[in-house]
């Protein structure tokens, strides 16, 4: 039992949250294992971002308990980089606890190698493309001793082709540096390509309405039968299936 517990990165027990009269989260239970990539999908405005804020500790829920093991960092949709710092300084934020200068330098070099942005060390974020910026954000979150990444629609501000490329990139980066990931998206294809487990959230107040384990090896093509099957099930759950009727 105790051996099992150490494998758990995040636990939510009976978490409910509301803003005044608006109930956003309703008795949510969630357990994320170490190294697992859990994707949360759900209708817009269902409380996905509130859930991430609860997980990161930025919001304390009205009731229920949140437990996590290790350092949590969030990757945002956009503008999460400090524009007054260079790319290297931004990534360096993740290495603040590394005091040894040579060690820091070595770590930074490795990260730049990893995200294929060598030569951009002294650029500022506003000089980079959207995809490059997101790669820098991910590198910053991966730097040093982080354990859990919360990703809040990290690719949704990118164009379609860049988004596809970033999914493959993320899988590659996580193979190099294994982390527990909670990934929020409204893109069902993205969810099916990335997830070890997809959790579908209901309308507000959100609870988990469906859990779907996808164990096909990664990276997965968007045309992979496992991906298509998962998309099909999620769409059905969300009531977006073509045969489900218009619902309007």
């Amino acid at each position, binding site marked *: 039992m105790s051996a099992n517990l150490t494998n758990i990165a995040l636990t939510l027990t009976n978490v409910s949250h509301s803003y005044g009269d608006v109930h956003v989260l309703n008795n949510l239970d969630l357990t994320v294992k170490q190294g697992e990539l859990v994707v949360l999908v759900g209708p817009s405005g269902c409380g996905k971002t509130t859930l991430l804020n609860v997980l*990161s500790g*930025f919001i304390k829920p009205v009731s229920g308990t949140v437990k996590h093991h290790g350092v*949590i*960092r*969030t990757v*945002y949709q956009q*503008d*999460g980089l*400090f*524009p*007054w*710092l*260079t790319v290297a300084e931004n990534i360096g*934020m*993740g290495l*603040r606890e590394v005091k040894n200068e040579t060690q820091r330098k070595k770590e930074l070099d490795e990260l730049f190698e990893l995200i294929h942005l060598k030569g951009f060390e002294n650029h*500022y*974020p*506003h000089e980079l493309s959207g995809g490059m910026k997101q790669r820098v954000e991910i590198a910053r979150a991966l730097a040093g001793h982080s354990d859990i990444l919360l990703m809040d629609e990290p690719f949704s501000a990118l164009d379609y082709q860049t988004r596809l490329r970033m999914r493959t990139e993320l899988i590659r980066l996580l193979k190099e540096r294994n982390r527990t990931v909670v990934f929020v998206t409204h893109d069902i294809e993205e969810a099916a390509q990335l997830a070890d487990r997809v959790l579908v959230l209901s309308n507000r107040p959100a609870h988990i309405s469906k859990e779907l384990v996808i164990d096909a090896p990664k990276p997965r093509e968007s045309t992979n039968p496992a991906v298509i099957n998962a998309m099909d099930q999620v769409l059905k759950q969300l009531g977006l299936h073509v045969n489900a009727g218009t619902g309007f």
Partner: protein
Amino acid sequence: MNQPAAKKISTARRIILPVAVSLLLVGIWQITCLTEIFPHYMLPTPADVFASLQEEFATGRLLNDIVASMWRITVGFILSAILAIPVGLWLGNHLMMRVAFSPMLNFFRFLSPLAWIPFAILWFHIGDKPAIFLIFLATFFPLVISTMSAVANIPSIYYRVAKDYNYKGRELLTKVTLPAVLPQIITGLRVSYGIAWVVIVAAEMVGCQDGLGYGIWDARNGLRLDTAVSYMIVIGTLGVLVDRLLAQLTKMPNVKWGYER
């Protein structure tokens, strides 16, 4: 014309075009003088003004006045910046204090420094002090308000990121809040530095025996409008030159982002 097209204008044209506009203005002035719509004592000719400029320069009075005014402006402005920026940072971070102080700050912002002249004389007598006091008053409130609202409008995402990477207390202020508002602080400084120059004429009307503002005042009393105009030209030119220097601050690599979106 859109932005990219504007960037294509060559350096030569960037110099030639403004010079042409200035010459055009002097031309209109000259023609107005030649038509004699106004009697000579009401509107000096460009030649009169140029002669007076040379004269004031030759006697050394102009240089002395420039130094005197620059000193007052610099001291008043620096005192104001040293106090206004921390106050603005503090108010920007505390909503309750902002609500409490904002109406008062705005109230004082709308009071012309001229209204303070009696107090400037009574409290600071003569010399540099009343002028410095007036410049301080004129620049302090706009600078507090611009710093305060810049801090209040920092996107909350920066604070979330800061929390993730353990920025707390003093470090949060110096490594997140301050750099996040630095572009707007620089803009605020440029604007209030402009105000300082606008105020100098009024500020030196009282208790001063030199300075560019006093020079205009003195010329008026002696009905030497040629001298008054030459001092006006000096004030405008110095203002522009110093603003060009302050504009260089906006080219620092860690603030450029604030002007490019």
